[in-house]
């Protein structure tokens, strides 16, 4: 079985983001980048499928710049067999549709049995790529998987819906995006980290056409207003509840 995992190289959530002067991109200097956490679930799921199915191969594919190699290496360290970097000039300006087109072209060449992705990237929050890839490849897509079981060329996928969960069955190949809780991603073993450096990582230069969607402006979130002390007597509790209900509207 061949499994393709699409991954993205994203800034760590704990890192401090600085918007550069053009107002459209961030200063990547001093920013720690990581493998997108939702994609980690996809990688883990791919590895579990591989471990359950003899003679399987897991390939990680990513669109990005040279620095993206480190996230691909992270996936290789976890146990992915090989990686492909689809290298573009200015990755920060690539829109989701362009990413999906680039990925879909490469996936066609691999012709995998299953394509796994994270449900979204934690930097752009687009949630578009899984669906777009599936459309471009004319494959079924199931988003937000919490459980995946493969049998006889089909995948049974559980996903959460409002107030409960639903179970779907899809033919393969299919694109399935991972929700938090699908599994517990493994830490890379130290040996895996060493081996990852020797695993194949192919770099393909991609010439990007003009994108249809472009970023016009990035802004910082509004600063949280300072806290307010309502009082310190028993009466203050009543006042506090009133404010929480009427003003903050949180209860």
């Amino acid at each position, binding site marked *: 079985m061949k499994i393709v995992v699409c991954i993205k190289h994203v800034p760590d959530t704990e890192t401090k983001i600085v918007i550069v002067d053009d107002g459209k991109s961030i200063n990547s200097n001093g920013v720690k980048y990581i493998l997108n956490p939702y994609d980690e679930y996809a990688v883990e799921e791919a590895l579990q499928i591989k471990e359950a199915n003899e003679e399987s191969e897991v390939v990680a594919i990513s669109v990005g710049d040279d620095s993206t190699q480190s996230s691909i290496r992270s996936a290789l360290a976890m146990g992915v067999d090989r990686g492909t970097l689809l290298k573009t000039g200015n990755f920060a300006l690539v829109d989701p549709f362009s990413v999906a087109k680039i990925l879909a072209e490469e996936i066609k060449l691999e012709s995998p049995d299953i394509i796994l992705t994270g449900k979204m990237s934690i930097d752009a929050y687009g949630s578009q790529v899984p669906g777009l890839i599936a459309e471009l490849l004319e494959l079924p897509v199931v988003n937000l998987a919490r459980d995946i079981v493969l049998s006889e060329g089909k995948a049974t996928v559980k996903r959460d819906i409002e107030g409960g969960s639903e179970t779907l069955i899809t033919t393969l190949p299919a694109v399935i995006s991972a929700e938090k809780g699908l599994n517990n991603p493994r830490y890379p*073993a*130290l040996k895996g980290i*060493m081996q990852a450096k020797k695993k194949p990582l192919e770099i393909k230069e991609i010439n990007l056409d003009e994108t249809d969607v472009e970023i016009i402006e990035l802004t910082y979130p509004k600063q949280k207003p300072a806290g307010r002390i309502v009082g310190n007597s028993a009466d203050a509790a009543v006042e506090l509840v009133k404010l929480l209900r009427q003003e903050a509207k949180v209860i």
Partner: protein
Amino acid sequence: MNRGGSFLITPLDEYKILTPEHFTEDHRDFREAVLDFAQETIKPRANDIEKLDESLTRNLFEQMGEMGMLGVDIPEEFGGLGLDKTAAALVVEALAYSGSGSLLVTYSDHTGIALFPILWYGNQAQRKKYIPEMMSGKSLGSYALTEPGAGSDALNSNTSAVLSDDGKYYILNGTKQFITNGSWADIGVVFAKVDGTKFTAFILDRTMEGWKRGPEEHKIGIKGSSTTTYIMDNCKIPVENVIGKVGSGAGVAFNVLYIGRLKLGAVTMGAGKAMIKEALDYAKERKQFAQSISNFGMLQSKFAEMIVGSFEAETVTYATTGALDANIEKLADGHPDYYIQLQQIVEDHAIETSINKVLSSEVLFHNVDEGLQVLGGYGYTEEYPFARYYRDERINRIFEGTNEINRLIIGGTMLKKAIMEEIPLRDAISKIGDSWVQQHENKDAMRIDLARTILLVTLNDLILKYGQDFKSRQWMIKPFADIVIAFQVMTAVYARKVAADGSSSKSIIDDIATASIDKRFIEITNSADIIWRHILCSDDIKKRKKSLNDALDAMDYFPDVVTLRQNIFNDLMEKGEYNFG
């Protein structure tokens, strides 16, 4: 071979060390991976570990085993990764960021003194039988040397071993005390005297009758690690579980302690660095007098001091692992005496491994103490982890050889190396005249050369006064060992500063180096003064002081240590944590 103690006489410009600025990519990646595990998986469970939760500890050990953290420097044929001492130190210092002193003690015991007797002195059958299960984390190891009447005086053992009538077993009787991993251990290395005289090491395992564990000790800290007595009650150990030869136990017992010290040095070094961020995070948030307490100079100076101490400990740790690795690399794999040669390399660096242990454990002590002070009253409550850190830190200055025993090793080994001419100290001493003025384009380097002169002159004074008996003069060994420790710090820090040329941290490393060398130089002159006043007549004291003052006058060097420390603090504020290399 690069001999242990050679930092004492190697000309400063030729003294090269491994520095964190020159770690390999693998080294850096290991550190990241282990840090993630320490902070995401261990740290949130640190309070549960304190409840002496055996199944939690075992579960974490199995995870560490899967990741390969239990056998970083153990050969692959026994289930380890077969990497160098530097990689092992990096892994353990990153684990220390978990803040769980208890788990670190369990870990250090298991991967250090419990394992190395079997690796170094065991036969191939013993290694194959016991080491792989320890690597996987499925078996926990232990090391049982101490007895109620035999602590630092470890050979004064009352545990007896008698060969059974059929010649198949040794029957052990006696009590071992303060055994780390006591109630959990599946395997133990235990020491006893055969026929009342021949001190011998044995391997215990769970299957053996007569191995009993006493109740848990009620300790000040590291409450989540198990410490019990072992009661050997007619314990039957098969003869094939003798480690090495009958009567060779002293070497087994003591030589693995060098490795134990190296590992403990790395653990405490990592923990000391981790303290800085924890205290700083609090200081940034805490407001008094309408401003962050991190604006206050007295607190800033504490942080600067913590950074300098941790920088010194880190530098000396990797200077030592780098020197060991460079020597070990040259050994021929598969040589029948491979492990004996390896052990000899480590033993030859006894001064360095003892310095690592003393320095790093004392830096951790300082950082925890000052870190708690930054938190003020909150630091004194159990709501914040500093209370636990404060309790846990204390043991590090006691076990793996108390810091007093380690200072004796530093002084005693120096004396031995001087007298046996293992390093040409006498030759170096003979070249010193009445004038201590030397030239060097860098004034920090001039200070180090002056400190070296003070060290050698003082060693000479001590040898002339006491001869071999110096090793029993503990009032003098303490200040002398402090001189050696301070001198190793200065040379290593200077070598790191030189090696940092071209690094993005270069200018702040320069400031830290100058602050460290300044502080250590003052310590050396104080310690030497104490020795001189005790053993020299007043004319000689005056002569020494004149040589020293003339050299200082000629140097004309007064670095502004306040500005240096302000720079160090500002750099910390920018980075938010200890981070160089």
